[in-house]
């Protein structure tokens, strides 16, 4: 359950420095280091990243009283500022979630590769000896 808050923090801090796809990076790291079910891991990462984006978007929007989002939303045929905030949440969330999925699969691949390597390296017991 620590995953979502961590994602939230990482996305918030990293977002100020790194490009927009940054949520994929903490997502990947989380997926790789912490074993979890694929779907649950995806959802937790997505939730954390998404929240970070939504909170920052709402902060800028509120400061501006929705003036700009009210002008931008119709450009994208969205019903209003809410639609843009939702869209931002989806972009941030999916980026984080896809990162975590990749991380999780990589973890499994890495583990199986590790197992296979161990298998190859270990001396094969001779059955006939028994």
């Amino acid at each position, binding site marked *: 359950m620590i995953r979502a808050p961590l994602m939230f923090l990482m996305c918030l801090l990293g977002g100020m420095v790194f490009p927009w796809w940054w949520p994929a990076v903490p997502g990947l790291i989380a997926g790789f280091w912490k074993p979890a079910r694929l779907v649950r891991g995806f959802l937790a990462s997505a939730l954390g990243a998404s929240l970070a984006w939504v909170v920052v978007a709402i902060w800028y929007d509120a400061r*501006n009283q929705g*003036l*700009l989002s009210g002008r931008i939303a119709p450009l994208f045929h969205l019903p209003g500022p809410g639609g843009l905030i939702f869209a931002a949440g989806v972009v941030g969330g999916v980026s984080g979630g896809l990162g975590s999925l990749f991380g999780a699969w990589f973890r499994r691949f890495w583990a199986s590769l590790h197992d296979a390597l161990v298998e190859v390296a270990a001396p094969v017991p001779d059955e006939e000896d028994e």
Partner: protein
Amino acid sequence: MNKSLQLFVLTALHLALLWLWVAALDSRHGTLPPLGKFLSPFEGFWRNAEPDGPERGKGEEVELPGLNSTVVAEYDHRGVPHLFAPDLHSLFFAQGYVTARDRLWQMDIQSRAGMGRLSEIMGPSLVRFDQERRRMGMPEAAAASLERMLADSLTRVALEAYTEGVNAWITNLKPATYPLEFKLLDYAPELWTPLKSAVLIKNLQWTLSQSVDDTRLSHVLDSLGSGFFSRYYPARHPGAEPVFPQEVYPGVDSTHVGSREADRGAGREAGRGIAQANALSETPGILPSGPVAGAALQSPSITSTGLKAWSDSLWPRPNRASGSNNFVLAGTRTRTGYPILANDPHLDLTLPSLWYETQLKSGPVNAYGVSLPGLPGIVIGFTESTAWGLTNGMDDVYDWVAPQFRNDSLNQYLWRGRWRTVRRVIDTILVRGSEPVVDTQLWTHLGPVPVLRGEAPFGPNTPPLHALQWTALHPSNEPAAFLRMMSVKSVSDLARMSRFLETPTQNVAFVTRRDIALFHQGRIPEKRAGQGRLLARGTSASTYNSSYSSEWRAYIPASELPFAINPARGWLGSANQEATNEKYPWYLGSDFYPPERSQRLNRLLVNEQDATLSSAWNILLDDYSRLAARALPLLLRHLPAHDSTATDTARAATNQHSADLLRAWDYRYAAGAQAPVLFDLWWAEFYRMVWIDDLRGDFDAYVRPSRAVTLALLAGDTLDEAFDDIRTQTVESAGDLARTAFAHALQKARRAGAGKPNPFSWGNAEVGEIPVWGRYRPLSIPHVLGLAPLGVSGLSADGCGECLNAQRGSHGPSWRMVVQTGKRPEAWGIYPGGQTGNPGSSRYDAFVKDWAAGRAYRLLFLNWPLEVPDSTGYILALKGKR
């Protein structure tokens, strides 16, 4: 091992999925911006959402490399920066910096447009646009002008300092802080250069000096015949009241002073006729001999009896429902005894606005006014003791000539008996997301040949295989005028400085504490009457509009241009009409604006005996239509007093009410009135019915006969053959058309109002459906990219295309200003926009509502920082950085 392979494939698949997601959202799709970047609250559009609320009392200090000394930029409550600098370099550095801070994207896109570099950022759909700018010679002309600008020490300092200031702002930007439109179009701002400033002048010339339509006018002569042409297309507007009539024109009147008198040529008696002028402008041997093809063009009066009777009428033109005004009133006509100047240049309205308001103060220089983002100095404004304003001069400085090419290779052309070589320029247009387009430009000694055989024309007036003579292609240094105007003290200073204004030609209005003046200014080719009105063709030396005789040989000397200083009548004004009367020795063109605005202006000015700023402002807001005042009574007399033709009584009553509504109308286009809608529809329908058959059903293929001519026919000869519909057996009269047009207009008016409840309804339900003017014809101010949500639409305002307050569609007064000199200058002004170009700011369109309502802002003219502490909004201190 098998399992590992399986997992590898799955991992790779998810990596691919992630990669695809990032790639898809990191690039543009059609007109969609890269969604990842754009929607990110860390770097996307959210970052352009400016905090709402006042900036009062705040301050900021920035250190800028390249700045020599400290400049104080004091922003007032409307966001106008008042710059105080110790030297000119710092002043223009700061002007560049604060302008870029508010308007960077606009500067970038406009300079790109002028250079033909839009496809670089917007893709293949803009290649034609770019090709047109380039083939018309804009980049080449800008480079040539820049050379001239840099040779002038003041312009050089200003352009270079301004450039440094803009770039100081650009280099401090990060992708997250780029203006919104850079994010929408997904590109990065490019560093500013003096060349870009020069290009902006070319843009101005592009917009303001190409209003002629030689091609479609020639089409009239070719397909409708010389009889039709000479009858309905007079070269001079009937009823025109020139800017410089005899009583103020220096050739006749001797009230003028100043340097020009001395250098005026000897052969300038007022009575010298056109014929002599022709002789002077032509070299012997190629004089037009005998009756010439377009002889009728030269006649200033119309031959038709009906038209002759009508000398006081109108000359509107299709798609020309707007125009600028300026006027000056002498101290003898004002309440305070100090002169008043008023100006409202009418242009296509856009957001961000064309204008940026600012005050520039450094040592003795102290000027307030509007600047063009991208150019140092002030274009229209005032100083401690002077004020100046501009309207477009409308002289014909844009002519097509057809050189005779040797063969299809277009390598050589015949000119006066010898073969000349065509200069070819290979040009590469960079295209975003596509291969570069390699284009060849052809240049003759006359000018470029923008359209080749078999190519589609760029517009209605770009004939193939014609060379363009255009003064905008001549190197010039207009910014020098905008810079020097700030320190002009007297009329004779102005006379010298305004000579830098070459293209577009301008009517420069000017006042000091004592004097008033108006100068017609610009680079205007010397022409015979009618020369350049039609496409030049053929090489015969004797043909009236042959290519050889259409070549420009010289320009009218600056000392010969009309001007007036302190005329006895105490006022001067211009509204894009003819500059001079027939006695002026040079032909200036036939493309001046219709006379109704200038007629109205003159009548209002004559009556200004006790003028104040507010009475001058009201003249700019005048919504009286002289077209309506002339035409409506003529149309109404064709309606029966009581409609007995309508079979059902309800309809008869409606018609009667509508006619009564029109009869009671005061000819004012008030936003809340219904009558203007009825008249507008009626006149348009009547006009269409008169001419559509003669123009073979195609209004777009020809220049249409003017409203002045139509009106003159209506007034003089209601049986003129123009009124007969040539497609019917019967012979129609003006009355027949007027009645049918009235019925059509009523139908249209009701249709336009259908479903809209009308608060101005006056009892009768059916007539009540006629919408009010402000709703029927609302104004809009579109965003530069045409993105509807970033523009403003549905503005209800008084005024019409033919009114002094000329506005229609998205054209209108782009900057209204009135100034009265005195111990301290007093000035009001407004433009339809806001100081910032950022759609994420409440200041983006802050002035629009007040502008539409006709309100004015008092312009704050400061002598030192914090002079009026209550007016201070925000202080930006720009400091040099070593």
